């Protein structure tokens, strides 16, 4: 949740003309918050057990207590969607957090130290580009066996080069700017310059990329589950539900696949819109409360 | 005496999210046949916008009032082919040649494009003309240069290519928007010499935009000084430095450090240069003017003739008499 709330806070931080999200951005943020709340609270609300199958209700239409009806094995679709939401949001969150943390650290170090380290890092990244996320996830699943954790780790590793390349070029451009070089001449330590000045000025780009990569991660993770290599049955996950519901589609009962697929599409659109808005916004900055005699909050 | 270009009471307002922002107000200027007029001002003075208004290279949604007549016809009404005809005949030289020439096409393509595209000349003949004009602007072996790309030429050379491109259009009026600001001072002198000589040879009229008062005075017959989207003064260039009519012109020349001697402290102008939409009521310069009076804050002075030029200042005669007295 930290990434989601962080992106929201960064977005909301913009007042007036600074980093204003605009109607679309706020709507997208609203959808995301709603999904997060439902995922967190949902499973407690619904009484039905998402994994309790009852063949008599196979493909059953919506009934009392089951507003969305049943899937092929007579399981309540609403509760499966809600519990599925949890893995479909937590999974990408882990992927983005891990890949962003590694990507940013590598990128900032390479951009700051430069020289041989920068060329070594660039060469390693170039090689890592050879492995698309889904392919790496399949390879890992074949080696360590299917499972959500293996897929999350594989996708996180696969995203590192994309994030590192982008943050590195932004960091290189920022590093050449006079305000950073002046601090170097002042004798401030590399760490303090990076933490207090370089990274904060990269926040808009980082927030935007975190949001965009969240939607990529959601799709890739759903694909891995769709293959049956991610979340294992009977547990619910939007990817497996789209896959699982395919036989239903052929028999004219598309509910399970369409509902799960719909949830994915809506959230991906929301994250894409929010990501684009964040990358357009100017850096939201905080003035120094000089007039109020509180301790000087420059940090 | 209808000149080649007549701008009268030109007012341009740009649309912005919160409220429309005026950038030019009541600008009047005329350029006679074969005459070079300088347009000098600091940031936000509107000098570049004035030049761009002539060929309507304005940001989308800009509202234009007043009239601009080129060779007698009002450019405001021109559309489509007629507007393109105007632009072909009044080419523009820009400040940063490297940004203004397509980096992925050859120099030859840049030079001959207008000739070939506007259907008047074949490729072979266009290239021959291009090589000839390159020679005139001081670029030897034009044949090889035509096949080169912009990133292989220096800033100075690129600016000469830009000048060659404008001369190929055989224009009557040339617009130069700070053509040498991005160049070193020695390169600037060479490029200005080329532009000045070829302009006089061809009897071209020119509107020369710059922030450098002395440079404008050196290459232009008359010079107009702009501030906050208005024309403060128009004079024969020779008289501008020693006998300015408007307090702003005088303050500008005084603020500029001199090459001959060192002053203990420079005569500064308080505050900072304003744009038209930030300008106060009355005279736009009143907040920074050393000779401000009550009247200056309420009445906005119009550009009116005085000695051999025009000036927009209520106290111009009084100050002139005082300085000569």
């Amino acid at each position, binding site marked *: 949740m930290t990434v989601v709330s962080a992106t929201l806070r960064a977005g909301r931080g913009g007042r007036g003309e600074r980093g204003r999200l605009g109607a679309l951005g706020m709507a997208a943020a609203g959808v995301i918050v709603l999904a997060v709340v439902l995922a967190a609270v949902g499973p407690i609300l619904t009484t039905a057990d998402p994994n309790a199958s009852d063949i008599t209700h196979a493909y059953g239409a919506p009934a009392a207590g089951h507003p969305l009806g049943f899937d092929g094995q007579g399981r309540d679709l609403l509760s499966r969607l809600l519990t599925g939401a949890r893995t479909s949001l937590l999974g990408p969150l882990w992927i983005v957090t891990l890949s962003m943390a590694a990507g940013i650290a590598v990128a900032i170090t390479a951009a700051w130290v430069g020289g041989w380290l920068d060329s070594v890092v660039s060469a390693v990244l170039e090689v890592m580009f050879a492995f698309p996320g889904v392919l790496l996830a399949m390879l890992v699943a074949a080696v360590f066996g299917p499972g959500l954790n293996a897929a999350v780790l594989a996708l996180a590793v696969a995203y590192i080069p994309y994030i590192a390349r982008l943050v590195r070029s932004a960091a290189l451009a920022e590093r050449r700017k006079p305000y950073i*070089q002046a601090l170097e001449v002042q004798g401030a330590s590399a760490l303090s310059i990076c933490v207090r000045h370089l990274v904060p000025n990269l926040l808009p780009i980082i927030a935007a990329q975190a949001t965009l990569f969240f939607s990529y991660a959601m799709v890739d993770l759903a694909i891995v589950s769709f293959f049956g290599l991610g979340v294992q049955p009977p547990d619910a996950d939007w990817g497996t539900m789209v896959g699982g519901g395919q036989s239903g589609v052929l028999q004219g009962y598309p509910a399970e696949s369409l509902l799960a697929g719909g949830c994915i599409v809506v959230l991906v659109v929301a994250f894409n819109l929010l990501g684009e808005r964040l990358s357009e916004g100017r850096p939201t900055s905080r003035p120094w409360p000089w007039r109020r005699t509180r301790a000087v909050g420059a940090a | 005496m209808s000149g080649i270009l007549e701008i009268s009471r030109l007012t341009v307002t740009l649309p912005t999210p919160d409220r429309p922002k005026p950038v030019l107000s009541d600008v009047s200027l005329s350029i006679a046949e074969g005459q070079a007029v300088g347009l000098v001002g*600091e940031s936000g003075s509107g000098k570049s916008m004035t030049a761009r208004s002539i060929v309507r290279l304005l940001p989308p949604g800009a509202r234009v009032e007043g009239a601009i007549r080129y060779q007698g016809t009002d450019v405001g009404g021109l559309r489509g082919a007629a507007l393109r005809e105007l632009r072909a005949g009044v080419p523009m030289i820009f400040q940063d040649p490297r940004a203004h020439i397509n980096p992925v096409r050859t120099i030859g393509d840049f030079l001959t494009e207008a000739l070939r595209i506007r259907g008047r000349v074949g490729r072979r003949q266009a290239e021959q003309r291009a090589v000839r004009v390159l020679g005139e602007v001081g670029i030897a072996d034009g044949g090889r240069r035509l096949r080169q790309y912009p990133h292989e030429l220096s800033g100075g050379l690129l600016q000469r290519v830009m000048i060659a491109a404008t001369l190929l259009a055989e224009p009557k009026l040339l617009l130069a928007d700070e053509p040498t600001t991005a160049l070193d001072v020695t390169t600037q002198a060479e490029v200005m010499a080329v532009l000045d*000589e070829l302009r006089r040879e061809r009897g071209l009229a020119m509107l020369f935009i710059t922030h450098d008062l002395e440079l404008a005075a050196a290459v232009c017959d008359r010079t107009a000084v702009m501030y906050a989207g208005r024309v403060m003064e128009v004079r024969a260039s020779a008289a501008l*430095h020693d006998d300015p009519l408007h307090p702003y012109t005088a303050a500008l020349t005084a603020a500029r450090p001199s090459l001959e001697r060192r002053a203990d402290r*420079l005569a500064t*102008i308080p505050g900072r240069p304003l744009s038209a939409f930030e300008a106060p009521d009355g005279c736009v310069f009143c907040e920074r003017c050393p000779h401000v009076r009550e009247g200056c804050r309420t009445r906005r002075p119009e550009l009116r003739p005085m000695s051999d030029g025009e000036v927009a200042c209520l106290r111009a005669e009084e100050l002139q008499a005082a300085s000569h007295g």
Partner: protein
Amino acid sequence: MAEQIKEPILELAGLRKTFGEAVAVDDVSLTLPPAGAVAIVGESGSGKTTVARMIVGLERPTAGRITACGRDRSAPPRSARERRRRGGEVQIVFQDPYSSLDPRQSPGAAVEEILRLHTSLSAPRRRERVAELADLVGLSDRHMAALPSALSGGQRQRVAIARALAAEPRILILDESVAALDVSIQAQVLNVLADVRERTGVAYLFISHDLAVVRQIADDIVVMRHGSIVERGPAARVLDEPGHPYTRLLRASVPRPGWRPTRKEQEKA
């Protein structure tokens, strides 16, 4: 001035810098007396900025020695303490006002951060020092608390100067610091620099291509071309009776009343 030491406060001896085979700086030597003002004049590609960047350690010299305040600084600093100490000797103000300040930090916080780095003043004393520095460069409390995006180019350069002075350097390098400013603003900043020099005794190394500005601020001039020094001497002498042909060309290329651009004859094809 605390002590009247005679030997120069900054000395470059045989400074050289090459990028691959290109020689950017070739055997540059010069001295800057305490509270002095030396200008390095040259066009783009002359190597003047590279010299400045080597003095403050942003570029590593290929050869030659740099001594500031009596201490050698030819090689990059080893420890953070050494780096901080050098920050207290030489400071720099760059050209572009729009990226000389951290857009997310107010001028007050920027100057205060340097004071925390270089002095052991308490928080209230630091705030007083920030106010003193603001007055020194002609900025109000309102400017110091605003966001850099609300300040004009001239105001931002003054903040950059105040921030540099916060480290109480003996030498302030001004790398084309007024080149990007309008004439009226440039004059204000040049006056501020003159006041600062009088009141604090800081020495200036002024990097510029503008001869008129150089005359206004510098006592001595060094003219550089293609990486080496072609002429040096007192400002008045170098500008009024230039010895080297390049300096004469530079001088003759500056537009001034009565000046006319003339083409070099052999150039016309």
